[in-house]
């Protein structure tokens, strides 16, 4: 009979490619040949991952195949035949069912689905644990005639199955109460708990409904306290259907409203613009005043709150922005022991791009990160606070889940505004095993977070993916779609008599910088409102602007003449600006004899002392006191040192930058992204391995031979120029078999051409488990 491996071997290359694309974990690493692939595909881990990817209906179809092989699946599933055919095709593609005469479950599937369709074991299995005497009693009660002779368990089981083939009359006979008890088990779970399940009961003496059922074989005792409804009985009671509810269609999303693409695009673009602006504002702040990295690696709650206050947003949004900046490679921790969160050099490049380009970088970072911003501020299993930017927010598969949730939105018709519950229901249908599996609560919350964050970043608007959001999800370039929706930079400002200036859009960079210097920002958004105050004007003057320059700059960009109160303000501040001057010097020289100072200043040798005259009797120098003393002594003078007065040291904050750690740049290859080139290569390798194995490798276990014999045989093979089949343990301890043309044996290694890998390899002799010489040709 054809085996699963044979069936697999008979598939064409396209089918194999489809299989490996759908189940990429099968090719990491690439198996030696198709037999190995078949074996790997049947391992519990591989089956489990494959089942996790199936939607509810495909899973139901698989269960139907398990329970009712060879029957009409469409009737059993109460679903349209074409949907069933589709599901069977998917299962076949995934090599979960196989065979050319009707689908059969692939090896390993049955073990992975213990109660298919919520059904218990078949009669032969359910009663297998009964002692022959009890079986004989059962058959006797059902036939009404005592069993003679020595009871043969196998024969009795077969007879029982026969007798129970049409359980209808038996159920009637057991009475309505017993039927009600059965109903509870019909749709699964198929087991119930009773006391003393194994009590011997006969039809004549059965008192309770359960006893009546046990006596008729309609329930089987599984152990002392559990009774099970045998599969055949349940199927009968289900009336030919396998599932209570048809599940061929996913749960519906809310009915779409009137599609309003303009509103969606506009609202999303507004959020996108805001998000970019806020990230810039946050990183600007952190570049001037970096915040410390916690010892546990993360952002302190206080710093997160401060960021939220600065940006005037909720805490979760601040965490999202920081995490997004991190994911986009714009933010990192500086390398010091007591690290700080600072922008990366990439941030400077990011700043040079236009808003749409910046958004794309942020959105891509968010989409592919396995970090979960929503976890910031939550508590972990051990009730410890989870900090934003810490490793505690990383959840494997988060990016996958995020994409799945967004895919639900993207797949809905326009005008649909799906809430988190609808998305959860849809995800639970699309991948039921995975969604309800371990960490289900987290997945539930993740769906909510994803929607919230997608809206906050402008990937969606009014619960619907924006045009540029769709492009992002589809892996296309969103920039051309977003760009026309965003405000264009302007270079004109409206200046008003209440000392405010309004920039009716994002300003060109240079003007924005100058204006930020001379005025305080009062509100931000599509426009920016600035307010001139004496302090802000002073700030501009401090930065080296003059009143005339300021007036000229504002006059050039203002739409009308400058309002008089503003020119007065600038003049008022400028008039008093610089009336007092403050500086710091390293040392000074003072004397009562002004002539001496004239002398020093006139002396050429004093040119290097960087002296300047503060007052007729005072000189100041940038040299430290001791150096100045020595220098003056060299000039032939006799100065004495003085205790200094107070000194003011003015510092300017410097913008900090740090390189991100290399780990941030590693792109992990995730399942599902195995590219076609890789898959093609894998199929070729498998075929080659298969060829090699069929060509030479005898079926059965890899050869085993004692260590000394191994070396001897290898040497012999080298001399004779013969190919060998070796069993080999790789570095992970995985055993594999290889076909090798040995070249030489030395230094504890066998060097040879590995036919299964089509490359020359060195094999450690101590890892070779056995050698068999292969026959020529």
């Amino acid at each position: 009979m054809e085996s699963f491996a044979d069936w697999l071997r008979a598939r064409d290359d396209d089918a194999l490619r489809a299989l490996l694309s759908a189940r990429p974990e099968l090719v990491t690493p690439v198996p030696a040949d198709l037999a190995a692939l078949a074996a790997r595909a049947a391992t519990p881990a591989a089956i489990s991952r494959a089942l996790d990817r199936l939607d509810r209906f495909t899973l139901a179809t698989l269960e139907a195949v398990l329970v009712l092989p060879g029957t009409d699946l469409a009737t059993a599933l109460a679903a349209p035949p074409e949907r069933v055919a589709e599901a069977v095709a998917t299962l076949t593609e995934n090599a979960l069912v196989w065979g050319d005469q009707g689908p059969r479950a692939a090896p390993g599937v049955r073990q992975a689905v213990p109660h298919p369709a919520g059904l218990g074991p078949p009669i032969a299995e359910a009663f297998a644990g009964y002692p022959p005497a009890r079986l004989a009693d059962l058959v006797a009660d059902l036939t009404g005639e005592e069993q003679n002779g020595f009871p043969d368990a196998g024969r009795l089981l077969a007879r029982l199955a026969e007798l129970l083939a049409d359980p209808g009359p038996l159920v009637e006979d057991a009475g309505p109460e017993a039927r009600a008890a059965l109903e509870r088990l019909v749709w699964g779970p198929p087991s119930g708990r009773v006391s003393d399940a194994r009590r011997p009961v006969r039809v004549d003496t059965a008192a309770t409904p359960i006893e009546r059922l046990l006596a008729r074989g309609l329930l089987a005792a599984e152990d002392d306290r559990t009774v099970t409804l045998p599969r055949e009985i349940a199927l009968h009671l289900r009336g030919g259907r396998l599932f209570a509810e048809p599940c061929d269609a996913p749960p519906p999303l809310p009915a779409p409203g009137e599609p309003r693409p303009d509103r969606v695009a506009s609202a999303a673009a507004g959020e996108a613009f805001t998000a970019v602006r806020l990230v810039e504002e946050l990183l600007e702040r952190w570049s001037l005043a970096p915040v410390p990295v916690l010892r546990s690696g993360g952002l302190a709650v206080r710093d997160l709150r401060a960021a939220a206050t600065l940006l005037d947003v909720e805490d979760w949004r601040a965490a999202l922005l920081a995490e997004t900046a991190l994911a986009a490679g714009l933010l990192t921790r500086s390398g010091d022991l007591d690290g700080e969160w600072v922008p990366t050099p990439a941030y400077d490049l990011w700043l040079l791009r236009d808003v749409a380009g910046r958004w794309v970088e942020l959105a891509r970072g968010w989409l592919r990160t396995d970090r979960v911003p929503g976890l910031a501020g939550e508590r972990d299993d051990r009730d410890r606070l989870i900090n934003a930017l810490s490793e505690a927010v990383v959840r494997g598969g988060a990016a996958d889940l995020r994409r799945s949730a967004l895919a639900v939105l993207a797949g809905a018709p326009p005008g649909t505004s799906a809430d988190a519950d609808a998305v959860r229901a849809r995800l639970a249908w699309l991948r039921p095993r995975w969604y309800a599996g371990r960490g289900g609560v987290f997945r539930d919350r993740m769906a909510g977070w994803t929607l919230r964050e997608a809206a906050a970043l402008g990937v969606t608007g009014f619960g619907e993916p924006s045009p540029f959001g769709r492009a992002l999800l589809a892996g296309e370039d969103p920039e051309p779609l977003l760009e026309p929706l965003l405000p264009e930079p302007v270079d004109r400002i409206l200046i008003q008599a209440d000392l405010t200036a309004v920039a009716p859009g994002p300003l060109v960079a240079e003007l924005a910088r100058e204006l930020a210097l001379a005025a305080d920002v009062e509100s931000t958004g599509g426009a920016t409102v600035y307010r001139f105050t004496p302090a802000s004007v002073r700030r501009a003057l401090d930065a080296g602007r003059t009143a005339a320059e300021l007036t000229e700059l504002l006059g050039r960009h203002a739409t009308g003449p400058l309002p008089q109160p503003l020119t007065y303000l600038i003049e008022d501040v400028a008039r008093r600006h610089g009336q007092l001057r403050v500086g710091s010097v390293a040392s000074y020289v003072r004397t009562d004899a002004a002539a001496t100072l004239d002398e020093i200043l006139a002396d050429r040798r004093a040119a290097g002392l960087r002296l300047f005259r503060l007052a007729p009797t005072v000189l100041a120098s940038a040299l430290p006191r001791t150096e100045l003393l020595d220098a003056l002594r060299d000039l032939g003078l006799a100065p004495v040192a003085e205790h200094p007065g107070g000194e003011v040291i003015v510092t300017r904050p410097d913008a900090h930058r740090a390189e991100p750690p290399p780990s941030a740049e590693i792109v992990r290859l995730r399942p599902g992204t195995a590219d076609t080139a890789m898959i093609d290569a894998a199929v070729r390798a498998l075929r080659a391995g298969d060829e090699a194995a069929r060509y030479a490798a005898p079926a059965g276990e890899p050869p085993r031979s004692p260590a000394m014999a191994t070396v001897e045989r290898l040497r012999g093979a080298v001399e004779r120029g013969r190919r060998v089949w070796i069993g080999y343990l790789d570095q992970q301890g995985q055993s594999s078999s290889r076909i090798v043309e040995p070249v030489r044996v030395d230094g504890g290694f066998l060097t040879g051409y590995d036919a299964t890998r089509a490359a020359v390899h060195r094999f450690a002799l101590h890892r070779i488990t056995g050698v068999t010489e292969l026959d020529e040709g």
Partner: protein
Amino acid sequence: MTDGPLIVQSDKTLLLEVGHPGADACRKDIAPFAELERAPEHVHTYRVTPLALWNARAAGHDAEQVVDALLKHSRYPVPHALLVDVADTMARYGRLRLEKHPEHGLVLMSSDRSVLEEVLRAKKVKGMIGARLGDDAVLVHPSERGALKQALLKLGWPAEDRAGYVDGEAHAIDLAEDGWELRPYQREAADAFWHGGSGVVVLPCGSGKTVVGAAAMARAQATTLILVTNTVSAHQWKQELIKRTSLTEDEIGEYTGAKKEIRPVTIATYQIMTTRRKGAYAHLELFDARDWGLVLYDEVHLLPAPIFRMTADLQARRRLGLTATLVREDDREGDVFSLIGPKRYDAPWKDMEAQGWIAPADCVEVRVTLTDAERLAYATAEPEERYRFCATTATKTRLVEALVKRHAGEQTLVIGQYIDQLDELGALLDAPVIKGETRVKERERLFAAFRSGELNVLVVSKVANFSIDLPEATVAVQVSGAYGSRQEEAQRLGRLLRPKASGQGARFYAVVSRDTLDQDYAAHRQRFLAEQGYAYRIVDADVVLSGGEL
């Protein structure tokens, strides 16, 4: 992307570019749900607050309209979060309703059970409610109607008051439109109030709020209690009502420090109502003295806290608030909303001016430079004396004299904060001084003389800030003010805004000492006016003294 006139900021302010062709249409659409905060020359700032949104809901607008208006006029994409927030906030109004139940009387009903559960669990609400009537309603003690509304507003679930009003004792009141008629906006304001039941009408100073009050009384046809800021104002209300309505002098009572008349229409001052004797309010019985059909509050933005408390007990009577601004220096806008009612009507100053209902005003700040000796004295003055010193310098006095001389023959008010300074100016200008200690009789005599043109110059202290009708004042000179009160500045300018017989514009001078606290405070006060579109021009004292063009 549209090319609309509106820019939506992330702090929920709306910037309206006035010069844009679509600005007028946009203003009409956003005015119902956004409070005008600043109206300088190019860009007006509106703010969308929860109260403003609830005002809009009370006026029958829904979230969809608001969102549409924002999206329609906005130049740039509007952040989604903001739109959602607007919709959420608006949805909070009206989930709870106060209704009159035919059997149980006053009940709090809800269309949303969870909201009702939430507010019933709040500690503050506990004492105000009675038995539960089914899932969606609960009995409310009639005496707690106002307090409950206040508490619910604080909880963020403002209740819609649909419990209706008592009719009150009927009294015939008609408008006597002989030789004058109700202006269109006054009629609209009175109608808007009447349809809303209770609420606040916001109109600029000088636009005839008293007439709106009279029109409201004519709609109510019932006995009316009017609460005003002070005695002079009470007299003026009385005179205005006699002139504008069918009411005769006998029908109008004054309830002030001097007189205690209770008539079908009674005018009381805030002061008398808040007077306490032995710890208790002595005149509370006024509220029950008659079955009032309408309670009218003048200058709502000045309403003192005790009056709020008394008003909480008047929720079954119609209430009308009149004010020039909803901005309160004490942030009690929420109490105005819940106790008097939502805003029912407003119109911006500049529009009124453009239509000729109020006089245009020209504001000039005159900067005087202190002499060196004054500067030194200022620098060494005690901190608490510094403002007084720079506000009352001799240099200023000289300048005021020059200004008054320049406007000789025009009706001129000199306004100040410090009595010494005012007395000195009075003597110098040979003009009478009205201050706190001036008797009411004397004040009225002087005002009458000023109005008739017998007197050209009047020096007044802050007692003249409110509700004094000086129709023919064309020039005001402010020499000192209360630190930085934005309100005061608006009120003082308001003195000048009533339309003049001559059609002439008004001139408002503020005399300020350069480089002192005076200048800082002046800047703060003027900001409010600049925000209302009354931009100050600044001139140097030298220009005034040398007789240069102003």
